[in-house]
């Protein structure tokens, strides 16, 4: 029993950063723009969040800075792909390398700095509930916020006028034009929103979870987030489940090793990626069906 609690609580605390990034990427892709620079936005967020928290002493200012930095990088992506119509994949990857360079250059002075970030706060009462308590209610404030933000985002995307415009931009952009709206404007907002979320996801790692900054500290989680969006079928609620699944797969290795299980850790390390492949195989058909049409054009162009 206890072991499942450990794995699941590790899954929630470890999956939250992926969840923020994947929620942001969901918004961006819903508008028809894929951002492979999500990893870069997370790096910008992780660095800016840590640096500003270190300089000002306020983790909240750090999160604001992270959101701004992630949003700024995504804005470059938006300018390149929406206004200049350049290749979305090339732009995203270029921005990732830009972020790697920038954060390495300015980040070296912040390695080893100490900050007062967001520590876990057990919610009185709720945290005493068996299983659910330690898994869900002994986390940090950014995790608690994500419990509200993910369903709220679902509501916005599927139940509001703004969400309708977003989905229309992704499904049949011409309809927006016909109705007198600007496709570009909607996509700019969506892409920058995606960057803001990814920035917060990055800062979650540096300001809340590990409370330290290292060059290239995201190590591929941004790409996991992009993959997650696909098999969550561009649905924020499914993103929650997917992020926790990934988080749990990542948590499995240390939990089992700490208990002295005779397992091969290299096999365990493969698990999150194996899981991705398996899910993509099983969900592949369905995911293709629910791909926003404008996004499919992007993929089709890349194929040709």
């Amino acid at each position, binding site marked *: 029993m206890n072991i499942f609690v450990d794995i699941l609580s590790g899954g929630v605390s470890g999956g939250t950063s992926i969840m923020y990034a994947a929620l942001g990427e969901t918004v961006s892709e819903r508008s028809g723009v894929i951002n492979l620079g999500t990893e870069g936005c997370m790096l910008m967020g992780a660095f800016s969040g840590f640096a500003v928290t270190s300089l000002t002493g306020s983790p909240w200012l750090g999160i604001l800075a992270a959101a701004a930095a992630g949003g700024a990088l995504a804005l470059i992506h938006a300018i390149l792909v929406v206004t200049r119509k350049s290749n979305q994949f090339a732009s995203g990857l270029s921005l990732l390398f830009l972020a790697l360079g920038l954060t390495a250059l300015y980040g070296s002075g912040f*390695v080893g700095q100490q900050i007062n970030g967001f520590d876990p706060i057990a919610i009185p009462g709720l945290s005493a509930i068996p299983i659910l308590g330690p898994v869900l209610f002994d986390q940090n404030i950014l995790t608690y916020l994500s419990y509200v933000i993910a369903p709220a985002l679902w509501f916005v995307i599927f139940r509001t006028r703004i969400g309708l415009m977003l989905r229309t931009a992704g499904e049949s952009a011409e309809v927006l034009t016909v109705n007198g709206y600007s496709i570009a404007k909607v996509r700019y907002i969506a892409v920058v929103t995606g960057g803001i979320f990814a920035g917060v996801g990055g800062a979650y790692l540096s300001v809340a979870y590990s409370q330290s900054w290292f060059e290239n500290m995201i190590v591929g989680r941004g790409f996991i987030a992009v993959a997650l969006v696909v098999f969550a079928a561009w649905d924020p609620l499914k993103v929650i489940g997917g992020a926790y699944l990934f988080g749990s797969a990542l948590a499995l290795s240390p939990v089992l090793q700490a208990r*002295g299980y005779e397992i091969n850790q290299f096999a365990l390390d493969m698990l999150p990626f194996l899981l991705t492949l398996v899910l993509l195989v099983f969900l592949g058909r369905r995911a293709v069906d629910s791909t926003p049409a404008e996004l499919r054009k992007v993929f089709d162009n890349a194929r040709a």
Partner: protein
Amino acid sequence: MRRIPIVGAAIAAALIFAGCSSTTDTTTESTAPTEAASTAAAGSGPGTGGSAIGFIFVGPKTDYGYNQAAYEGSQAVAAAFPDMTVLTQENVPEDDNAYRVMEGMISRGAKILFATSYGHLQAAQKIAAAHPDVAVVQQGNYISDPKAITPNIGTYFGTVYEPVYLAGIAAGKATKSNKLGYIYAFPIPQTVNNINAFELGAQSVNPKATTSTISTSSWCDPQKQKAAVDSLLKQGVDVITQHQDCTDTIIKATEAAGAMTVGYHADASSLAPKGWLTGSQWNWAPLYEDIVTTALAGKFTGSEYNANFRVGLQDGSNPFEQSPYGPTVTDDTKTTISAALDNLSSPGASVFTGPIKDQSGKIVVPAGTSLQYGDPSIEGMNWFVEGVKGKLAQ
């Protein structure tokens, strides 16, 4: 329209290289080879006649750990040899890129190269084969085939597990739960040496002490490090140590939870004012300077550095030293450690003195024998001692 991403990539690449280049790197490619040619007459043999000394590091020079210690060593060399230009490059991957970076350093006048990461060995061997006039030394790995040690290559290292054994004593004395934790990257022999030495040190003062191990499969992944700390603490572990390149996430998380820390690579006691016990740290300057002096004098070939050079307490100079003690370490513990240090400094002494059992209870080192540093049994160690928990992945 297609130009834009390419421009972006170029800017990004430029920034990456700007971020990586060293502050001491001031040579220009046009002048360096001429200088090299003009001074070539000064001596002969690999390592002579150059105008520069190159160092490559696998990680950033500010990691509070392995790379920072090596970088500081390179700066000591720069200060000790003001006539030479010291070229440094951070973040050099353990693949063919290392070869290319070293090739670039040679073209800028370097005749002495330090490849400072374990995984740089292959690139170091390749560059040594391509340039017989360049002395190449590799830090931490081991060339097991004597024939592969050509006149211009060698490996060097300190006896890492000796201070780790001493720190294990401190951990064994301090633990209340008798559960120690060790977070490591990969099951390379050096790490296995350390884990075993740590447990043996702890056992020497506390037979009940066990060491739980967690591999992160990465030299620096803060998220995995934090998850490892959390998992160990949940199992009641109250002293955590590590073999990682970046160390501060683990130390900070351990301190925040009120558990005790044994450091590695650098003195990080400021990160854990309450829980710091002791640790192990590098002091590369004397060894680096001696290697450079030897090579510049044309005496590299046939020297102790033209081999798998290993130095430990018995030689009176281990570049890997014990870190200062934390506030809670008792005088009794300090006395015990100091006695163990004297013992290990005596001729023929070893951390791995039998009888030592492996995890299955089988005696691997019989009573009356010991494993000596530089032996293949230590350089290729692939088993955990009894008392270490966790499977060694192979």
